[in-house]
């Protein structure tokens, strides 16, 4: 073939599949040249997955022991540092139980996706730990939590009302994450992870900015991601409501000394409550009744809002996006041929197929978004109801769901200090006697 011929048609990329194969037969060499093979660096070894799960189990157990039995803030900090190094900097943040929400949801809805076993393990182990010991995962195992916890410099108090309202954002984030993962569109938790840039030490300038701002916020607001956005946090909160064991501020009986009142930077210490005034009983019950009656309205309203939002929500789906690109290209004269359209045309898939796929997806989003909206209505109604019910408490205790088991309050309790001193003295005595 003449060179000029090749050159004259060289400027174009032939966008048709199958053309690009064996135009020139591979030569037969006379010089004894042997054709090199393609190098294939292996993927991460199988045993490392076992190691990860083993480390996770050990760390969860250790965190539970440190927060419930040993009651050592120092130990918890050490564990945090370890987790930050191992799950954060060494494993670069993937896979983490928060992101595994996406994989698990996707596996539940799409049977074609065979989820790797250790991802399943990463999702269920923290929950299993929470059902027995409370939020041990948040306490010392989660690298995101650890990073935020360690940098906490001067916490400002977030009023309870603000905290309760902001938490709705986490619920919304969880709902959207489940919606997108269930429909196989995206793992948004992983996509918008605000701290992973630190673990990977490389990210786009935008992600760096988001990460640095989040961490800067964490200097003054205790664990902002954990409290106001973390979707796994929402799950663990609910599970730890019924956990077998709970972190206690005091190892003994509360003496109402109020020393721990401000020890928690996360607003998770609840004060003892007085008897509800009788004057409040009647309006309280009426309010409760009203909220219970309002619940179906909120659910229906949420579902309606979800339905209205579904076309916008669906736009993130790759199939819908492709159909949109193709449609735009087809309808608008002089529209630039995007890479998507080019790839679509090279694939030989019919336009009808693309449109049908997208229409199906949009339809699924209509159902999914309505369900998610209804669910958000239920959540909002539920939190209104829970905040209309009076709970009697006799001592200072950590919030069953809000406590991150970080151990900061231990040292605020005189009982704890006393016991530690006694322990230390006993050890010292034993040492003196032994010598």
């Amino acid at each position, binding site marked *: 073939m003449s060179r000029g011929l090749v050159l004259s048609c060289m400027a174009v990329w032939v966008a048709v599949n199958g053309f690009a194969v064996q135009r020139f037969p591979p030569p037969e060499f006379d010089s004894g040249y042997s054709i090199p093979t393609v190098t294939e660096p292996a993927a991460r070894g199988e045993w490392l997955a076992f190691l990860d799960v083993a480390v996770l189990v050990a760390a969860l157990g250790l965190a539970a022991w440190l927060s419930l039995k040993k009651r050592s803030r120092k130990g918890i900090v050490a564990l945090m540092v370890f987790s930050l190094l191992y799950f954060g900097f060494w494993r670069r943040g993937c896979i983490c139980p928060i992101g595994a929400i996406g994989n698990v949801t996707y596996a539940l809805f799409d049977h074609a996706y065979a*989820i790797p076993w250790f991802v399943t393990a990463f999702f269920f182990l923290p929950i299993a730990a929470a059902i027995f010991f409370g939020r041990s995962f948040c306490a010392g195992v989660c690298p995101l939590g650890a990073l935020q916890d360690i940098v906490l410099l001067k916490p400002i108090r977030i009023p309870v009302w603000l905290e309760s309202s902001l938490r709705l954002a986490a619920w919304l984030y969880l709902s959207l994450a489940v919606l997108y993962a269930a429909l196989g569109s995206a793992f948004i938790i992983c996509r918008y992870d605000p701290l992973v840039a630190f673990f990977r030490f490389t990210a786009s300038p935008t992600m760096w900015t988001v990460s640095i701002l989040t961490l800067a916020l964490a200097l003054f607001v205790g664990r902002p991601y954990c409290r106001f956005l973390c979707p796994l946090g929402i799950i663990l909160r609910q599970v730890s409501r019924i956990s077998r064991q709970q972190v206690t501020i005091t190892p003994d009986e509360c003496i109402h000394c109020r020393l721990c009142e401000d020890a928690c930077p996360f607003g998770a210490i609840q004060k003892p409550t007085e008897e509800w005034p009788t004057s409040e009983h009647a309006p309280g019950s009426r309010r409760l009744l009203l909220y219970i009656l309002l619940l179906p309205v909120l659910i229906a309203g949420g579902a309606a809002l979800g339905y209205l939002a579904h076309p916008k929500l669906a736009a993130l789906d790759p199939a819908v996006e492709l159909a949109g690109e193709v449609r735009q290209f087809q309808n608008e004269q002089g529209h630039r041929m995007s890479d998507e359209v080019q790839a679509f045309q*090279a694939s030989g898939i019919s336009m009808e197929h693309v449109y049908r796929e997208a229409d199906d997806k949009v339809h699924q989003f209509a159902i999914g978004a309505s369900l998610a909206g209804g669910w958000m209505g239920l959540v909002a109604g539920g939190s209104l109801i829970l905040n209309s019910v009076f709970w009697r408490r006799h001592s200072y205790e950590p919030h069953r769901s809000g406590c991150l088991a970080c151990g900061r309050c231990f040292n605020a309790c005189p009982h704890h200090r006393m016991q530690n001193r006694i322990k230390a003295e006993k050890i010292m005595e034993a040492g003196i006697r032994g010598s």
Partner: protein
Amino acid sequence: MAKTPDHLRRRDFLRDGIWASVLSVLGAGAASLFARSRRENLVWQIDPAKCIACGNCATHCVLNESAVKCVHAYAMCGYCDLCTGYFVPEPKALTTAAENQLCPRAAIERTYVEDPYFQYTIREPLCNGCGKCVKGCGAFGNGSLFLQVRHDRCLGCNECAIAVACPGRAFKRVAASAPYLIKGRA
């Protein structure tokens, strides 16, 4: 020890009941999911048949230097003198001079084998996965150059940032034991 009042016993009973049912539901969920789980890990890989070498791999990877690199399936290569993956369109001369090279980072090494054949080797540390050579080779050559995720570099993000940006949806999850989709291999 004071006897627990009745209403507290009832509350404990209720709590235990809820606890046990949540535990069993979670257990059942986990068990059914484990039953469907695969023993092996999944890793990201590019399906060369779907790749259009758009160049997103070079710019969208979370790594500064993309985990995607060009790979050469030598068995498919025509060992051309005028390699359209190596030379810019209408090169001034078939030499290794920089202005003749298509690769923006001079990551392809051109070595003489025998007349008239030349071997093209990817210098992986220099390759940024832009796919310019892939496009050139695919358009007019045998298509023996193609992009692959290199697993010694890939961080294994749960959601691959390049996959999100891939216009041809060429990224897919493959078993970690066979982590490459090498062209020309059955």
